[in-house]
């Protein structure tokens, strides 16, 4: 075992980048497919908040992070189906439905969290004892540098590549073509016999699970606790990733890695001890970067034509 001092700063930076991009990528890749089918889901932030809280509460109760992760992810499905009901059945605009779900989620978690840890007791939230930690792959993890970056990762980081592969396949298959048709011309897709509602519902369910997973990762493996507004705009940054990635899985992966890198930088700069740099500047780095990247690259790709428009069959 090599001590931390001997290992270059950059190696740990890359390792953290891959680790911290996991929740971002889980949310972004699912949002990409959903946006391709023409649904703009702004409730990502709310889903992640609620599932983060659920995962935290279950883990604290049963001392089992895997159970917490599972239930947290399932709760994401529930919220996302509620989102589907709001925009498809009741007919609220997707932007409004997403935003109100996010506001609702922040109020709900704020209340439930205080209900759980109690008002009169100390305000510091309890740390989870059992969390989902690193998983070193035997032999490979002993390689210099590469072993630390790629093979001594968090459990979820190993899922990144299979997930990318899966979504790449879907994107380039016949199903992906149908989804794109729905996103471009829902009426035409409907007349071709593609069930617009069914496709959108299935995608929403998949997204609910993946987004819930992203939220659960935050509490069960990254922060190991819950705080108010723990997502801190991560859901909206995930939506930005889709725009930067131009609705392409590989480019979305690259932009997620970039932001994982920014998050890692933010953590590591604080450790390096730049005392002259106020910590607020490093903390606001992801948000500033989001705006700058949107200005620089936000316009290169055309979004799906019917993005944000709810399709209703004319009878």
């Amino acid at each position, binding site marked *: 075992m090599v001590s931390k001092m001997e290992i270059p700063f950059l190696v740990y930076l890359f390792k953290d980048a891959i680790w911290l991009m996991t929740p971002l990528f889980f949310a972004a890749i699912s949002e990409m497919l959903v946006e391709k089918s023409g649904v703009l889901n*702004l409730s990502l932030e709310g889903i992640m908040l609620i599932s983060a809280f659920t995962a935290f509460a279950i883990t604290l109760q049963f001392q089992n992070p895997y159970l917490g992760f599972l239930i947290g992810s399932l709760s994401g499905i529930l919220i996302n189906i509620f989102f589907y009901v*709001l925009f498809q059945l*009741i*007919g*609220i605009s997707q*932007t*409004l*439905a997403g*935003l*109100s*779900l996010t*506001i*609702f*989620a*922040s*109020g*709900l978690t*704020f*209340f439930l*969290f*205080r*209900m759980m840890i*109690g*008002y*009169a007791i100390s305000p510091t939230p309890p740390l989870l004892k059992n969390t989902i930690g690193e998983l070193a792959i035997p032999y490979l993890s002993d390689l210099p540098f590469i072993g630390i970056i790629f093979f001594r990762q968090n459990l979820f980081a190993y899922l990144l590549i299979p997930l990318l592969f899966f979504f790449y396949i879907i994107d380039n298959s016949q199903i992906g073509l149908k989804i794109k048709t729905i996103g471009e011309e829902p009426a035409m897709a409907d007349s071709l016999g593609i069930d617009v509602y069914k496709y959108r519902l299935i995608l929403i369910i998949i997204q609910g699970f993946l987004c819930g997973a992203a939220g659960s990762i935050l509490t069960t493996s990254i922060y190991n606790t819950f705080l108010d507004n723990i997502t*801190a*705009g991560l859901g*909206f940054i995930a*939506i*930005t990733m889709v*725009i930067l990635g131009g609705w392409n899985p590989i480019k979305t992966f690259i932009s997620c890695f970039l932001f994982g890198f920014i998050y890692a930088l933010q953590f590591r700069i604080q450790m390096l001890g730049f005392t002259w740099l*106020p910590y*607020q*500047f490093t*903390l*606001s780095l992801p*948000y*500033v970067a*989001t*705006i700058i990247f*949107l*200005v620089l690259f*936000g*316009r290169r790709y055309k979004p799906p034509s019917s993005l944000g428009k709810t399709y209703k069959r004319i009878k």
Partner: protein
Amino acid sequence: MKVFFKIIKWREKLGVLNVLASILAVGIGMAILVLSLYMCQINISLGLQTIYAGSLGRYNSISETLLRATILALISYGLIISFTAGVWNIGAEGQYIMGAIASTIVCLTLGNILGYFLIPLAMIISVIIGAAWALIPGLLLVKLNINEVLTTLMMNYIAQYILSWLVTGPLQDKTSMFPESPYIPKQAFLPRIIPIYRLNYVSLILLILLAPLIHIVLGKTWFGLSLKILGSSKRTARYAGINVNRTIIISIVISGALAGLAGALEIMGVQYKLRPGIVQGYGYTGIVITLVGNLHPYGALLASVLMASLINGISETCQLFQIPIGLAQILQGIFLITVISLRFLFRFLIEKYSKVYGE
């Protein structure tokens, strides 16, 4: 049958139904409030009495509620204008923070020079800074077609970190242990109506006068009409000869300006110093108020008084009975979800039955 015919007649009066939706949503919210009091094992009548006492039952609580209501109402008047134009400005939080910062800086640096001009100057500067903070997402939306939801939200976080940096660094009161600025000079305090209560003339005048003003702007002027047309369809607006880009920019800038003014009122009328505690999610509460108030200034006025009294009353109840604070936050989420669901449900029902029974 008669009911259905009545519903058909109501079709022309969708506005009435929207008001009904708001009232119903408030009713449902209140029912949930009572239910949660019951679940927290509090005597319900005692709990409600405490909420009343903490919101409107004493002179001091009336003053506090109206102060809070002014800030919420100002933010939501601005949001009414931008939401009517279909611009989803969710950055009122950041614009409010920037307004608060600007007014603090003006009061602390120029406090002893200006005398009577200090209050108007600080207000004007904070309006300008709030507007400028909103102008950036507006320009990005118009010039580069970048979704304003994302940019305004990111700028909220940036504003929060700027505030956090200022109160721990350049503006920090060196004699205080807490991250907060020194008190602003006495001449910057907004003149109080009754010296022992914090309610001031400026807040009360703005609260009462701005609602009719916004109502006239939205209902009687060409600008208000163009906002409405733009909100219903961008294409129609273009055909009607409306300068779409300019209208979008103006609407988001007005909402930023009003949020900035709200920030100034929070500093000069409530806190008298800059501290992280000014960030209370007013921007998001403002969204709730705007939608519960049915995008109408009078509705927003009522909703902001309601929301302010709920926040004040519930926080007093929570302290008294030692229950978790946050009931107000969950209530505002419930208000929002129910009001939009009910409104669209009503419209859906009307569409359905007016088709079945003919016009």
